[in-house]
């Protein structure tokens, strides 16, 4: 065929017409890398979880890419350090959506940032998976794109309540929270749920985390006849003061509650190591070792893979495992659907039933985006940290 002006014009008009009619465009992006946006508070306050998650993210992406990628497509992780600042998280999210055009977002890693960016990602229909615990962050109607990788706070509360009532078999419980928004909300929810399940909440208090002397509240709890103290605070200083006061009072009441009670910093804040005994913090079955010192087989498999590549001494295994799972979940969605379209990734996640991640066995549906199973949330012996894992609290098999 001759190349004439008429032919060129006809061809051009046809192409414009076809694109206007919505005919398929050449799939240029389908051969490019899978872009994963990673909103991580890698520096600044509360950066420890993101640093742990990041080790898992880097490990998983490198492992997938070394094995040839996902149907030949490499995983490209685009990280933005949000520094724990919601404003920076919002800016990074907007950059990822409108400029970087990522295929999915993993993170942010703290609830404050997540509260700010979740509606933005929902408007852009951006597939998002995150580990933040605040209950309201997951709502499949309002945020059909948002999925939770870790337990929600109500699942922590379920596990704590179950441990108090079914394992420790106590009836009289004191509930203590700090005076932050989280501490007040968590303590109120905990008290309500305990009462609903027939427990006698003999003492309920919110304590300023900077209060130097915990004796008044501990005395009141003791005088009220508390057989266990449920504690909801992210303040390790407050936790340590409570444990020290318990020892000074010569009281052996168990503490059950927030994961911060197992933070390594408490080891240096308690006056004697024994003050940290009989403290049971929220943990995860996948990252807890049994009385023989053994992790579940699937978790041990991950630890073996990480050996020599990822340091677990100064972090928690669940953070690293969560990072690995997040990247694998995104990669798996692209592998199964063959697409990086938002609809395809979200649609795939909505079909997952008992997906065997390293951190948890996830199940999502269009109506339920809290994918972590409550029965995998367990209590850990708070002072038993070993390479990012903890001993199961007494009472678990």
């Amino acid at each position: 065929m001759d190349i004439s002006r008429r032919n060129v014009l006809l061809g051009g008009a046809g192409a414009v017409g076809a694109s206007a009619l919505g005919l398929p465009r050449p799939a240029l992006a389908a051969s490019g890398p899978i872009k994963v946006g990673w909103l991580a508070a890698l520096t600044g306050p509360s950066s420890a979880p993101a640093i742990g998650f990041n080790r898992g993210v880097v490990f998983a992406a490198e492992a997938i890419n070394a094995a040839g990628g996902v149907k030949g497509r490499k995983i490209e992780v685009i990280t933005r350090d949000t520094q724990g600042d919601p404003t920076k998280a919002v800016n990074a999210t907007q950059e990822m959506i409108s400029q970087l055009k990522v295929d999915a977002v993993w993170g942010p890693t703290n609830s404050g940032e997540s509260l700010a960016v979740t509606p933005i990602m929902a408007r852009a229909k951006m597939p998002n998976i995150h580990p933040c615990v605040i209950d309201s962050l997951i709502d499949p109607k309002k945020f059909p794109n948002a999925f939770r990788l870790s337990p929600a706070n109500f699942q922590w509360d379920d596990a704590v309540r179950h441990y108090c009532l079914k394992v420790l078999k106590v009836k009289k419980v004191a509930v203590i929270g700090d005076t932050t928004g989280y501490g007040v909300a968590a303590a109120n929810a905990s008290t309500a749920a305990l009462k609903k399940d027939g427990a006698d909440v003999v003492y309920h208090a919110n304590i300023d985390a900077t209060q130097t002397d915990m004796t008044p509240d501990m005395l009141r709890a003791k005088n009220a006849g508390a057989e266990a103290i449920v504690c909801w605070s992210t303040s390790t200083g407050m936790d340590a003061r409570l444990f020290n006061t318990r020892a000074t009072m010569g009281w052996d009441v168990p503490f059950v509650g927030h994961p911060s009670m197992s933070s390594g910093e408490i080891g240096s804040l308690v006056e004697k190591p024994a003050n940290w005994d009989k403290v049971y913090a929220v943990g995860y079955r996948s990252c807890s070792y049994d009385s023989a010192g053994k992790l579940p087989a699937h978790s041990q498999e991950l630890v073996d893979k990480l050996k020599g590549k990822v340091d677990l001494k100064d972090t928690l295994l669940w953070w690293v495992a969560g990072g690995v799972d997040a990247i694998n979940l995104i990669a798996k969605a692209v592998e199964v659907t063959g697409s990086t379209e938002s609809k395809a990734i979200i649609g795939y996640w909505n079909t997952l039933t008992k997906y065997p991640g390293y951190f948890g066995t996830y199940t999502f549906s269009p109506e339920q985006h809290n994918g972590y199973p409550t029965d995998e949330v367990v209590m850990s012996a708070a002072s038993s940290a070993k390479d990012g894992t903890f001993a199961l609290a007494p009472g678990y098999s």
Partner: protein
Amino acid sequence: MLASIIASGLAIGAVYALIGITYNTMYSCSRVMSFTAGALGMLGGVFGSLFMVRMGIHPVLALVLMLACCALIGVVTEFVAVRPVLKSLDQHLYVLTTLALALLMQQFTAIEWSTEPQAFPKLFGIGSGIWDEKFWVPVLACAATIAGLEYLYRRTLVGRAFVAVAEDNFAARALGLPERNLRIASYALAGMIGGLAGFAGGQLLLAFVANGPLLNFYGFVPVALGGMGNNRGAVIGGIGLGLFQQTANFLVGGIFSSVAVFALFIIVLLAAPQGLFGAPAARRV
């Protein structure tokens, strides 16, 4: 219970009193209410923990180093946040500059140190129960500071020069006193007193970045109660505040104790706006 109230009330009251004296020392030489006092207290604990726990330095040397660092920060405060606004004291710009500097210190400490409380070691290892050193060390530090300041102001030439500047800095300058240098020295002294508050109260408060705003707030109460620039008033106000706060903790609980403290504070100021020990402001006409 009474013994516990007295022990911890006196201890935390002594820390508040020292922060009150820090406010006063800066105020008397510059007429500036510097809101870096709480940050200095916070840094006293952080430097103490840094030198003793992380670097393993002997407590005596750690104390000296901490005092030197806090004195330097006091001097920086004078240069950065106070001197530029001295000419327009009536506009109260110092509230902004000193608060901004305190915030700067706070954020820097949070990033470089930790946002979580860190351990502060025992200094002497003496005492247990209500006689634990965490209760009597702040009281001892407060008593030593008062004695030291009394000696400085009453028995030394430099101290008398401080008092002269505090009384009337124009007259002091007219007499040939180096008012600017004395003000710098005064801020260095205030830095040391603030740091000592955090160091002595370290076992109670821990080395914690959140102590800054707390001490700023509760350290200001004895100043207002005792009268601006009145160290004796600050000590009585501080100890009284500590005892009242601890009693309220026992009787009505943590959250309500703050309400009780500030309700009393407002009532006292309504009854005696110049503070319990301050003289009413008089202006010669």
